[in-house]
């Protein structure tokens, strides 16, 4: 019963909150990841290695940030997706 009500409330989350729960945590984590990553790696050198010498540092930071954001959002979206309640198992032995 309690499982039912939990599924119910999760389904009833306002759309705003559902969108936020994907985009917002990933944004926060992306900001942190961008700082930590680029303290160690210089985007210009990475651009050189990747064969994209025309990418400036500011451009590198921006691409990095949005890459981390996208990846984080993907993770959050999958979490949300797998949290959805599954259809109950059909028990053939009991049905007979």
């Amino acid at each position, binding site marked *: 019963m309690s499982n039912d009500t939990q599924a119910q409330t999760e389904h009833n989350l306002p759309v705003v*909150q559902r969108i936020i729960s994907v985009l917002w945590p990933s944004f*926060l984590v992306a900001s942190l990841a961008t700082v930590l990553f680029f303290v160690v790696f210089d985007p210009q050198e990475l651009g050189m290695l990747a064969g994209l010498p025309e990418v400036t540092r500011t451009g590198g930071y921006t691409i990095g940030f949005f890459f981390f954001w996208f990846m984080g959002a993907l993770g959050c979206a999958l979490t949300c997706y797998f949290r959805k309640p599954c259809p109950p198992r059909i028990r053939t032995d009991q049905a007979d």
Partner: protein
Amino acid sequence: MSTDKQPASANEAPVEQELYKKRQKIYPREVHGVFALLRNLAMLALLGLFYGLCWIQWNGHQAVLFDLPARKFYIFGWTFWPQDFFFLTLLLIISALALFFFTALAGRLWCGFACPQTVWTEIFLWFERKIEGSRQKQIKLDKAPMSARKFGIKASKHAVWLLFSLWTGFTFVGYFTPIKELWDSMLALTLGPWETFWILFYGFATYGNAGWMREQVCIYMCPYARFQSAMFDKNTLIISYDEKRGEPRGSRKRGTRPAEKGDCIDCGLCVQVCPTGIDIRDGLQYQCIGCAACIDICDDVMDKMGYEKGLVKYTTENALSGKHVRLLRPRVIFYSMLLLLLTAGLIYGIATRVPLEVNIIRDRNALFNTTNEGLVENVYTLKVINMDSEPRTFDVSVTGIEGMKLLGDTEAVRVETGAVKDVLVRVHADPVNLKSRSSEIEFHVESRENPDAKVEENGRFLGPVL
């Protein structure tokens, strides 16, 4: 499958309706009083700092500039490098601890007075009031059908909001790219694509957060709002309604004090001024950002009724239940001790920071060479980074192996402030003095002008074993 889907889609309709009910717009009423004054002062100070600081110059550069394209941070006289990341981490830990400390002591002081979300929402509300008028006028305008007048008012409000947001985005980018150059290139319409993008992105975020999202950011998005209650105890300052004194609430004639009623006249003004739309009389709620607007308005009402102030006030749970309030609790002492320790550490670290960094890179082509005289030669590139605020002249020397020699431009290496210089050096040693395949040697780099700028860096000297 289809039977499972049925109830879900049947649920859909009421859910969507609930969504619209939940997103009721809040029209906070304007309020005057001690806390409103404090809030406005904090707002002016913080916004002034944000919009003003980036225009101040210091020793020929922007006083506060996080120069991302050059990978260095200027904060007044200091220049910080990616190597100084440790200080930033320390600073962030100190900020977090300070937040915990103030939360334990005085509740959500941060939310009500200093959080950017609150500060920008306040200024956006101010614009809204100047253009649309008071709370009643705003509600009336929103209910009215679209007309030329309504369109004009709404359009000018959004125009002002958008302009202010763009200015905010511009200022934000101005902390990462020198703002004067940014201003010039904006006037000349030669802004780079990334700068343009970030100005628009940050401007849009400001407009969305302060104009549209407002209290929803605090309720749905803010991690601090979710966990702040963990730092609360019974001695933490909270904003609370004095239920014993106020109940049973009810309206009455001005100047009277009916014996059967409490002091709350149920005027509902405390709800009208609340920026998150809650009723403080329902008790402590996590939606309360502690802005104290309800205290100001209720004190006003109490004054008009001839009752004593403080029906809604800053108090603690212990004070409300008539117990003794303790200011110094273990957690407060713990937070303050830790805070003092880390702050002292940070100041010490910055004060004794060596404004020089040397990285040693071995030549990748050969482990070692043998010269015509039979000496073993190793080649290194020393990356000398001058982190001082003045240009410096450095001398390089090496120790570690008997009779070793250093060749290259090792004397009077001039490095501009904030620059990196590659110094190519060759080290010669007699193979008879080598004790193993790999010996440890020590490079010394020393500034002529500043004795503090002195670094010893270890390197490996490779050679054959005789």
